């Protein structure tokens, strides 16, 4: 048994140099990354990039051709499986089974006893506004409701690590917000969360670090804000009142709806431009260093490689 400190220091996931080929193609090629406890980690990439194959190797559903996966400090085994929550990409439950029975059965496979599973299920159903449906059969639920039930199944055993494959696909905005809130809570409780998705805006909003893959290969890996800083262009976004006139160091300007983008020459920093504008007494409503969205970085990187 590990001490609490050891558990807290331990990486939730450590993947080193895994590779997997299928008959006709290389799905994952020498991929390495790690996820810490209490971290929300984004696994992103276009469709067919190898995200799901990577997850399946982490889950020991597929065996990697080479490389190693460590989950919560050890190779995946029955005990670690109980501390792991997995939401696969496409969702389904036993259609004929009732909601509460489905949750309790799948929780029992994670070694949660019947009594606590029922109690926790009621609590989560209440939290998601689905308590009224607990005695309905799964087949009577809408797609989105079914997904919420499956999310409850994923977290009912209070897992230390959550692996979610496209968790927001097919959810309406209300349920998307609900899910995001629950994920943020889980992260704040110190759980590690891995989000695999091609929806960049969700990752941008939720994740601390990311791994971007394309064609099974590592494209970008690291802290999200650092990556964004790295891709920051040499321009500022400005919303102001009145006339702007000539600004030293600005080589061009582009007018957008509600703001103007100023292109800077190589020697001028955004701080110098701001200082200049303030000294002139220009009324500024918004001044922002232009940072590309993850989507733009993604398109740029994927475009570059292909």
């Amino acid at each position, binding site marked *: 048994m590990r001490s609490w400190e050891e558990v807290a220091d331990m990486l939730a996931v450590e993947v080193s140099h895994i590779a997997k080929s299928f008959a006709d193609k290389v799905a994952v090629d020498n991929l390495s990354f790690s996820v810490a406890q209490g971290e929300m980690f984004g696994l992103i990439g276009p469709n067919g990039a190898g995200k799901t194959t990577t997850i*399946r190797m982490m*889950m*020991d*559903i*597929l065996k990697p051709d080479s490389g190693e996966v460590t989950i919560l400090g050890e190779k995946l085994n*029955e005990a670690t*499986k*109980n501390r*792991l*929550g*997995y*939401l*696969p*990409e*496409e*969702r*389904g*439950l*036993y*259609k004929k*089974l009732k909601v509460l029975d489905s949750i309790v*059965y*799948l929780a*029992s*496979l*994670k*070694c949660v006893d019947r009594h606590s599973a029922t109690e926790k299920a009621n609590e989560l159903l209440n939290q998601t506004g689905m308590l009224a449906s607990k005695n309905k059969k799964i087949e009577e639920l809408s797609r989105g409701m079914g997904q919420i039930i*499956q999310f409850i*199944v994923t977290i009912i055993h209070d897992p230390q690590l959550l692996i979610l494959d496209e968790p927001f696909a097919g959810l309406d905005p209300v349920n998307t917000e609900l899910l995001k809130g629950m994920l943020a809570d889980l992260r704040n409780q110190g759980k590690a969360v891995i989000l695999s998705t091609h929806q960049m805006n969700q990752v941008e909003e939720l994740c601390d670090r990311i791994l971007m893959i394309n064609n099974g290969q590592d494209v970008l890996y690291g802290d999200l804000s650092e990556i964004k800083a790295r891709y920051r262009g040499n321009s500022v976004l400005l919303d102001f009142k009145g006339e702007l006139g000539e600004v030293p160091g600005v080589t061009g300007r582009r007018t957008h709806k509600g703001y103007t983008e100023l292109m800077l020459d190589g020697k001028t920093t955004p701080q110098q431009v701001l200082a200049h504008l303030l000294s002139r007494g220009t009324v500024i409503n918004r001044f922002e260093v232009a940072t590309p969205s993850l989507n733009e970085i993604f398109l740029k990187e994927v475009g570059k490689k292909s």
Partner: protein
Amino acid sequence: MNKTLLIFRHEFQHMIKRKAFIIMTLIVPVLALIGIGVFQLISTGEPPVVETTTIGYVDEAGGFDQYTTQGYIELVRFDTPSDATAALINGDVSEYFVIPSDYLSTGVINRYTLKRQLETPSAIATVIKNFLTSNMLADKVPPETVYRIEAPLDLVTTRLTETGEVATEQGGYGNVIIPAIFGLLLALSLQASSMYLVEGLGDEKESRLIEVLLSSVSPRQLLTGKVLGLGAAGLVQVVVWLASLPLLLNLASSTIGGFFSTIQLPANFLVLGIVYFILGYLLFAALSAGVGAISPSAREGQPLAMIYTLLVFVPLWFASLLFVFPNSPIWTVLTIFPLTAPIAVMLRLGVTGIAAWELATSLAVMVLSIVGALLLSVKAFRVYLLMYGKRPSWGEIIQSLRSG
């Protein structure tokens, strides 16, 4: 609780709550009860009135004028064939026959009727035969002898044991009927549950629930739990059937009697019935798990499952041959081949019994097949788990089982 046990319990509960399973389990006692009830309703009513039939005859040979009442058939003599034809057309007689003058030398009897028939009804032929015999022997031998000539034997066979005592099992059709019905039900039940397992696994694959399950349990736990769950459900079914049998038989032989009172359960039948039922269930479940493993969906798995579930019926196809050639070596083969063994053993128990070495070999082969099928299924499951939408070729299967 052990995870295999959890899956076992879930599958068992799921199975016994299915409508098809409940119907299959209850149909035996319910149908039998209905049968007995219907018989009682009919038999307690007025006994059916047997109408007397009148048959005409023309005696050209002479001397055929006694014994004109044969059971419920009355024989009326006509002088000429044309008189008889007129009576036939009038509806006074239902048919007539002519005894030609040269009857003694030729044996020919000409029969005339308005009905189209495949052949002379045996009751009529017997009546005519007895009428002729009685008249020819009248006054020559005593009446008892005439009667004995008409019905010369009532064969009563008794089977003795090797020590010369009367055997408890006397054989005959009364002995076959229960094992045969049981064999048919077993075959149907095996087929239904195999299909169910393939369907269940296919659904879990299609809905990707399988990935959720495997994030909690291993493929071995999952398949073993499923196979055992199905086996236990089978056991419930067979216990219901077998428990209802003695009751129903008592009821049937006391109310209906006749053939039903001759029905016997062969010795060992209860024990072997249960053993083969369970083994059969386990074997077919293990095979179905394998088919479920290599099939991407229920729709594609079921035709494959059809192939081996049809084999289970083979002994029933040849059942009539068993009655004629009970000692053919083909029965030894069917008894030992694991897919046909459960039904072949049931049928043979009723007809001739089975040599101890054959039973021992059959049981050993079945147990080995179950273990082997389960191991292969787990392996195939692991290899083909995620091949959604694509079924591997046989070459690929064999190759991957070797390397996997």
